[in-house]
């Protein structure tokens, strides 16, 4: 069964492709596939009918089934089971589905381009519906249930350019999803109560009872009645008529709306005696049946006549299937089949009329019956079946339905008789609206009174082309089925009987009923005749003119729905406007306030003792550094200029690096020092175009609030840390780290081995984040593509980079300085740096160039040393990479952007990519040797000159880290350094014409 479903879904995925090749002929293929599914279902009949219907999945004599494990932790399985009920519905779904597909092959215009997706959705719907009836797992059932909901939404909204279709689609989605969610809760609840999510096992537990079960069943039934459009959810179904007619014929007559009926029939054997069952199925069904039938008599659109008729019939089906007796079960399923046959056919007929005439309004349609004989014959058969006239299957089914209600009433007295009376009244109305449909669609009508031509016949509605055989075939086959099963009801009886046997008869003394055209002169036959007579009267009195409205417009369910949605929207808007006022600072304030108040509350309301082990500091130096750090922090608050504040924050960083060193963490101290230095440079580079001193001053009141909040937050964290450290009793997990890193990781630097071996996945994730962040920086600055190709070095004119073009914006003193600098830079020789000459003279510093020249290679060497020795001494990939990055920073600052290009002629992205690749390679390599990912191994080398060496594979990982970090820094330099250089030079060149350079106002002014 899983394979069949998988194939169906696969075909649906392929449908748009097929549609692009073959156009609407694709529907023939789809019809063929569904016919295959139908035959597959037929082939199962012998096994299914013979099986013990109530046996859970897996028992020897049970119905065929399959189980695949899916989420064992939650008890969710791909469990499928085909008992008689599932089989009947599968046949209905695949059979009607195949005919609908066939019908589609004529319904859509040959050159319709948008129907490919439609074909896929409609076919996927068939697959989902099959999955729904075959599922034996509650969660699977729900998944397929919601799939049908979503597909129905898409299909109703096919004409997405029409507001009516969009609105109807959303309405159907919201109503059925609402029911679906209630059902999910009910299903999970009942699964919990029964201790199993297997449907067959839950139903095999007859001892389930109690209030919890009652409520769970109510929730499940809410799902069923919303899907099957019972009052008060009925309004979505008529609105869903905005869908193309094949969809109405399939989803809203034969398949989807039957899902609710299926659910009721499925749960009826176990739960029909729970407290609220009768009210929600039988009584609500009866109310729906009456309301739907009466409203069908009022409609002027023949499709809406059918839609309200469907609402009415769904109420009927739910009530029969909910009754819970043997006869009712037989009758319910027979009626379900009958309804599927005639209603799908009738919708198709409406579709043909609409397709050929361009209207469905029965006030303009006239005289079609005289001209379209074949269509008329098919329509008469289907309509008569709907009205319950012999010799048609609708009659056969309705007879047994009456029989079962009659039997129920005999046992249950007045309530039963009241229900019986209601059913007869509603059935009479059904006859009435059936007649109205037939008359409305086919009869020759006259102008109504008051019209100028009152009494004259309406003009005959013109048909555009005759519907060909293929178009007519689908409804004709369905009508033939209606006729056939009336004469030969035995196959149906054979199929449905095993399911009906799950129920007790209403009264053990009554002989079980059976499907037949002729039961003899029974009271039920009399009741049937009574319905026909009443129905004829209803048509004569109400049906031709349209029945008057009985309720005021205000109690319209659709109105109520829209009002409630509107109120919900407004409420959501109100809540949002109260909580999300637009100020991000305010949101942050609230978040931090909550993050302060919650732990503070916990601390206040739980008992704590003052920690005993407190020391002031490890050594006096720590206190001195602490003073420096706090001073730096406060300085950052009061600093009047941007770069002053940045310097102050750097001071904090350096102080903290000192604290690291004093605590005994040389690696941390080293890394933090390097990072702080680079941050300082990057800050200056990025913010040089921003004004130096403009700080936003928030209102004083806000300042105090923020200061209080900050202080409170700091204090709460301090207390929380003190408490948790005081209470700590567990051994640190890292007590094993020292020997592990030495014995297994082959490295003496425990922190480094932790990074590249013990917690290597963590580090691997981190360098990926670094690469992503670097890409983010580059894309924010370059916008289009990073690493723009620059000019070759020799093409760059000497002294061109960062040149001040206009002296007008300078103060006399600055102009003089520039003059002096220029007079020195007369030599174009590449004295110290390869690209030093490209810098404008006023930006060059010979001392800096010399120092860079002397230091660069030493720094690079040192960084490689840190990288390789880091396994055993302080250092490692991070520190090494940062140091190398710093060397490039030096080159850039001393020689400008061309110097940076000359220093590292690769793309930064490639550098990081290679780094990640190397790291990845280290991880994958041990897998080939039969080890685990990232397992480290050691290679002993005895080189002739260099001596004995132990190479640990995890050092290779560190090389990857090194490359990523270097790549990150180069990327940041190229973005925030070189690219901003280029842009501000362009900008100053553009603005020098207008006389006021932007740079004269920025932090660095011309000195940049």
């Amino acid at each position: 069964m899983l394979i069949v479903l998988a194939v169906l879904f696969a075909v649906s995925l392929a449908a748009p492709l097929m549609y692009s090749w073959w156009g609407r002929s694709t529907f023939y293929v789809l019809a063929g596939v569904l016919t295959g599914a139908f035959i597959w279902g037929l082939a199962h009949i012998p096994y299914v009918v013979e099986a013990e219907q109530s046996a859970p999945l897996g028992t020897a004599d049970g119905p065929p089934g399959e189980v695949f494990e899916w989420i064992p932790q939650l008890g969710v399985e791909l469990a499928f089971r085909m008992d008689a009920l599932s089989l009947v519905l599968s046949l209905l779904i695949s059979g009607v589905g195949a005919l609908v597909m066939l019908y589609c092959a004529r319904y859509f215009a040959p050159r319709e381009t948008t129907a490919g997706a439609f074909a896929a959705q409609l076919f996927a719907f068939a697959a989902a519906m099959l999955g729904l009836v075959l599922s034996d797992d509650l969660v699977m059932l729900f998944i397929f249930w919601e799939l049908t909901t979503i597909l129905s939404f898409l299909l109703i909204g096919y004409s997405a350019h029409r507001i009516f279709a969009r609105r109807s689609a959303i309405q159907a989605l919201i109503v059925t999803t609402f029911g679906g969610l209630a059902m999910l809760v009910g299903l999970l609840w009942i699964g919990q109560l029964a201790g199993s999510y297997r449907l067959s096992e839950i139903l095999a537990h007859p001892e389930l009872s109690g209030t919890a079960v009652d409520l769970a069943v109510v929730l499940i039934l809410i799902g069923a009645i919303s899907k099957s459009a019972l009052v008060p959810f009925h309004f979505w179904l008529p609105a869903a008529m905005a869908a193309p007619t094949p969809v109405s014929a399939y989803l809203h007559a034969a398949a989807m709306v039957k899902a609710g009926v299926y659910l009721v029939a499925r749960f009826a054997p176990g739960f029909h005696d729970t407290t609220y069952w009768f009210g929600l199925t039988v009584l609500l069904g009866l109310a729906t049946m009456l309301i739907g039938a009466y409203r069908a008599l009022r409609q002027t659109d023949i499709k809406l006549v059918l839609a309200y008729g469907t609402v009415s019939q769904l109420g009927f089906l739910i009530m029969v299937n909910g009754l819970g007796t043997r006869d009712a079960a037989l009758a319910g399923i027979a009626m379900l089949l009958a309804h599927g046959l005639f209603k799908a056919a009738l919708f198709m007929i409406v579709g043909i009329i609409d397709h050929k005439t361009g209207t469905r309004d029965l006030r303009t349609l006239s005289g079609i019956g005289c001209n379209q004989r074949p269509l008329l014959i098919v329509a008469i058969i289907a309509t008569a079946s709907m009205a319950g006239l012999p010799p048609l299957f609708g009659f056969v089914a309705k007879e047994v339905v009456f029989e079962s209600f009659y039997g129920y009433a005999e046992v249950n007295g007045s309530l039963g008789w009241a229900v019986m009376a209601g059913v007869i009244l509603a059935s009479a109305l059904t006859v009435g609206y059936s007649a109205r449909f037939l008359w409305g669609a086919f009869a020759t009508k006259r102008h109504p009174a008051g019209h100028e031509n009152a009494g004259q016949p309406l003009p005959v509605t013109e048909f555009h082309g005759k519907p060909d055989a293929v178009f007519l075939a689908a409804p004709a086959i369905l009508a033939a089925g209606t006729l056939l099963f009336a004469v030969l009801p035995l196959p149906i009886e054979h199929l449905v009987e095993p399911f009906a046997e799950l129920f007790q008869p209403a009264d053990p003394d009554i002989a079980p009923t059976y499907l037949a055209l002729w039961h003899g002169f029974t009271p039920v036959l009399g009741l049937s005749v009574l319905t026909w007579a009443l129905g004829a009267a209803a048509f004569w009195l109400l049906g031709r003119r349209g029945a008057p409205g009985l309720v005021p417009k205000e109690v319209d369910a659709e109105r109520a729905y829209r009002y409630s949605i509107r109120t919900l929207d407004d409420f959501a808007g109100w809540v949002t406007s109260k909580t999300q006022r637009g100020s991000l600072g305010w949101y942050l304030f609230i978040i931090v306030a909550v993050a302060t108040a919650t732990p503070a509350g916990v601390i206040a309301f739980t008992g704590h003792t003052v920690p005993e082990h407190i020391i002031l500091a490890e050594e006096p130096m720590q206190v001195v550094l602490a003073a420096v750090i706090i001073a730096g922090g406060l300085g950052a608050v009061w600093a009047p200029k941007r770069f002053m504040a940045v310097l102050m924050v750097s001071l904090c960083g350096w102080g903290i690096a000192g604290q690291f060193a004093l605590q005994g963490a040389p690696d941390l101290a080293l890394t933090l020092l390097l990072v702080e230095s680079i941050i300082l440079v990057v800050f200056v580079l990025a913010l040089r175009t921003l004004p130096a001193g403009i700080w936003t001053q928030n209102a004083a009141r806000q300042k105090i609030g923020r200061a209080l909040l900050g202080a409170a937050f700091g204090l709460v964290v301090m207390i929380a840390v003190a408490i948790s450290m005081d209470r700590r009793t567990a051994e640190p997990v890292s007590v094993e780290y020292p020997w592990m890193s030495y014995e297994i990781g082959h490295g003496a630097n425990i922190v480094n081995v932790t990074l590249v071996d013990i917690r290597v996945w963590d580090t691997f994730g981190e360098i990926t984040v670094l690469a992503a962040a670097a890409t983010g920086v580059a894309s924010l600055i370059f916008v289009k593509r990073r690493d723009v190709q620059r000019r070759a070095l020799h093409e760059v004119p000497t002294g061109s980079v960062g040149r001040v073009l206009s002296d007008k914006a300078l103060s006399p003193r600055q102009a003089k300085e520039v003059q002096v600098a220029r007079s020195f830079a007369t030599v174009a020789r590449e004295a110290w740096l390869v690209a030093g000459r490209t810098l404008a003279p006023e930006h060059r510093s010979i001392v800096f160039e010399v120092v860079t020249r002397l230091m660069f290679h030493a720094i690079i060497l040192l960084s490689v040393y840190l990288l390789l020795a880091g396994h055993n001494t302080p250092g490692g990939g991070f520190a090494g990479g940062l140091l190398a990055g710093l060397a490039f920073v030096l080159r850039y600052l001393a020689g400008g952007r061309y110097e940076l290009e000359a220093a590292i002629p690769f793309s930064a992205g490639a550098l990081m990519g290679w780094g990640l690749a190397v790291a990845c390679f280290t991880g994958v390599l041990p897998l080939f040797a039969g080890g685990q990912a990232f397992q480290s191994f050691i290679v002993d080398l005895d080189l002739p000159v260099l001596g004995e060496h132990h190479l640990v594979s995890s050092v290779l990982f560190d090389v990857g880290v090194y490359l990523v970090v270097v790549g990150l820094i180069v990327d940041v330099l190229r973005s925030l350094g070189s690219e901003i250089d280029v842009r501000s030079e362009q900008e100053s060149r553009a603005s020098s014409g207008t006389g006021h350079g932007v740079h004269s106002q920025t932090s660095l002014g011309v000195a940049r």
Partner: protein
Amino acid sequence: MTINLTLLVVMGAMLAIGIYLMLERSLTRVLLGIILISNGVNLLILQTAGRAGEAPLYNEDLEAGDYLDPLPQALLLTAIVIAFAMVALVLALIYRSWVLARQDEVTDDEEDRRVAQSIGAHDPEEDDEVSTETSEFIDSMDPATGSIRQVDPSERAEGPGEVER
């Protein structure tokens, strides 16, 4: 575990000043606040390593407890470098915001303000009265005369942007 008061106070101060700065409108100050907060958190993690110890370089003569706990150090090392990447990213954002809008401040979210105005407003998609349609072929066929209208396929394929009244 022993509590180092100096580290505790410095951590608290970093967090307090960081929060204060982060709630500013100026983006540069927000960034500085973030840096200070990450400093504070770094100190927090450092404290969980306990009292000062030997540098975590393996030495046969030392007990496991003699070293400064290496695990928080490893966490810190990655945190420091990640913080650098984040600083660079926020700097790029500040630069971008300056280039685009000449603004280095956190601005109000216009979209949030707009939500407040939507309460009770008329939404044609939801509120317009739509007459029920009596044919699916309205746009290709004239319901009054029943004659086929010539419809440009591109017109039919129009998206949901168009609203029919």
